[in-house]
């Protein structure tokens, strides 16, 4: 018997000419609604136990509605969800928490809301307390918690009981990195114990990492259901509007308009200005999403307002956390030095291989005097651009910063 069978599932929101018609309908009067808006329709799929599923789709595609219908909080308008097992859903962390109650009392309450008996909850309590890892705060009112602490406790409760299906809706994007890692480890542990995970995320890489299969929903329709890697690739393609011709992954370059730096810091002594910072792929077309180990470049224009003797151009790539990954300048690269006169515009281009682990990276650009001992910049722009590195066929590393082109040999002596 399959764990979850979804047949011809659909959800529509109806409006009536008058609310009285809605009330009359409860008493068996048949009424045609004024308008019926389908947010999800004709969804069919079957999940066997032990398969973890990623749910992909743009905002408003109907992912959350689908999950709510599977979780049972929203009633389908047509079709059926047949569930053969126990289900738990984390649609939002911290549901049912009361700030005046202690962590422990809230755990009792939230787990009670999930339908567990007092004995079950008390048995699970040590595990919840250990996973929350907030020490004496566990017996203090939740209003004294930081938001991260509250997430810890609520994630701990939601995953404390073994269920056949666990639904996780984008709620893991909270808390510090260490806690996120801990959450993923817990999810991986649950999968290993046989729980089937239904996981919604915009982060394609985490879907690829933890899910075997994936569902791709667009405009309320099921576009594809199958092997996670394949569906993720198709989703990515749909997301960035790429045609089938550019199938060769090596040359796929993408532009994500949402990747814009919102925390740029700019300073300098006014003798010149850096403008038009552009990231480009191997063929020189503008991009900000690269596959790891793909060739990429950072280009910018420098306009000089005063004469500068042999200016030095700098470029640095940093992680989200601000750790410098790689920084270089034109002196170190032994580029030909030209003197700039007022009004000159120079075009600068740094090219390199994106030997990086999938993730987000920030770019600094600068121009300064040849004499490096005078640290003053003519103009420097910190966090001026963001780019994203996604995994590709050449990717050899999953965690950390640098992709060192790892190779593996296993042999018997």
């Amino acid at each position, binding site marked *: 018997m399959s764990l979850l069978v979804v047949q011809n599932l659909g959800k529509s929101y109806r409006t009536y000419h008058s*609310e009285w018609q809605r009330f009359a309908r409860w008493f068996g009067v048949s009424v045609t609604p004024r308008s019926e808006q389908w947010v999800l329709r004709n969804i069919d799929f079957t999940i066997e136990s032990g398969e973890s599923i990623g749910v992909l789709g743009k905002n408003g595609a109907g992912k959350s509605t689908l999950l709510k219908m599977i979780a049972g909080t*929203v*009633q389908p308008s047509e079709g059926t969800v047949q569930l053969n097992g126990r289900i738990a859903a984390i*649609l939002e962390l911290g*549901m049912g928490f009361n700030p*005046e109650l202690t962590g422990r009392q809230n755990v009792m309450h939230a787990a*009670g809301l*999930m339908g567990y008996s007092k004995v079950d909850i008390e048995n699970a309590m040590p595990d919840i307390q250990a996973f929350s890892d907030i020490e004496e705060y566990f017996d203090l009112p939740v209003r004294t918690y930081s938001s991260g602490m509250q997430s810890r406790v609520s994630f701990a409760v939601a995953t404390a009981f073994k269920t056949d299906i666990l639904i996780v809706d984008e709620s893991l994007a909270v808390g510090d990195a260490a806690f996120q890692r801990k959450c993923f480890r817990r999810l991986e542990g649950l999968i290993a114990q046989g729980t089937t995970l239904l996981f919604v995320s915009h982060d394609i890489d985490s879907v690829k990492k933890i899910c075997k299969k994936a569902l791709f929903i667009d405009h309320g329709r099921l576009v594809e259901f199958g092997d996670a890697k394949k569906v993720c690739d198709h989703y990515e393609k749909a997301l960035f509007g790429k045609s089938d011709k550019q199938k060769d992954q090596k040359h796929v370059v993408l532009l994500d308009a949402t990747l814009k730096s919102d925390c740029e810091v700019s300073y300098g002594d006014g003798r010149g200005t850096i403008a038009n910072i552009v990231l480009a792929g191997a063929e020189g077309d503008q991009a900000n999403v690269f596959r790891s180990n793909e060739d990429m470049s950072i280009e910018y224009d420098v306009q000089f307002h005063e004469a500068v003797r042999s200016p030095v151009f700098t470029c640095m790539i940093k992680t989200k956390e601000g750790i410098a990954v790689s920084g270089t300048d034109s002196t170190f690269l032994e580029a030909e030095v030209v003197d700039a006169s007022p009004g000159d515009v120079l075009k600068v281009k740094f090219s390199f291989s994106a030997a990086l682990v999938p993730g987000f990276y920030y770019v600094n650009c600068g121009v300064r005097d040849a004499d490096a001992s005078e640290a003053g910049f003519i103009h420097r722009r910190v966090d001026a651009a963001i780019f994203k590195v996604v995994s590709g066929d050449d990717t050899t590393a999953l965690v950390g910063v640098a992709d060192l082109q790892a190779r593996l040999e296993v042999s018997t002596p």
Partner: protein
Amino acid sequence: MYSLFKSLWQYRNFIFSSISNEFAVRFARSKLGGLWMIIHPLSQVAIYALILSNVLTAKLPGVNNKYAYAIYLLAGMLAWSLFSEIVTRCLTLFTEQGNLMKKMRFPRVTLPAIAIGSSLINNALLFTAILFVLACLGQWPGMELFALIPLYAVLIAMAVGVGLVFGVLNVFVRDVGQVVPIFLQVFFWFTPIVYPVSIIPVELKQLVLLNPLYMIVGGFHNVLAYQQLPEIDSTMIVLVVLSGLLMFLGLFIFRRAAPEMVDSL
């Protein structure tokens, strides 16, 4: 309908712990804590009893006892406060818990059950305070007290029915939430609580007799103020049937609307 009660039974622990949490939250960070649960109703009752009988020396027509009017008023308030508290809480129940209903799967019927449970506890405390004051005044009612049990059952059934119907309608038409408190005010003055029914002009009396709460409040008066058993006649039977029907209607509408409620919240 059977499944409603089954899920109530399955979630009984949750209901009890929610009620106790509600009181814990109400008195969190206060020094006297749970004592306030007693102090509030007790002071309310004591003030009524003292002011009305000793300062204003209000008298109940036909009863030669200086405490009679105060006790009459308390008896009426006891019944009315339960009715109005259940109705008011059910009214905003679903609109306030909207997010929870959207994000968690649990039997919705636990929400009114929690509201009714905590209203009952509040009322039980008020009742205790009244009994305490009655004992101090030497007006202890006696065995007639047990006659309050069926009266309570009828009162609760009626309040739950009315509360659920309006609570569900309020999800779809928010004006209901504004209208019902006004409606309750009018109803309060249409029920003989602060005045004895004997002072009503004859032509209005028929109207008051149509008020289903009149019979129930009258029963409370009989037991606590006149120390008699409530009259059992045909109107009482009509009342029992009516309150049963109201409660059934409330549960029926609640069941039919439950799937649609989440969509509108």
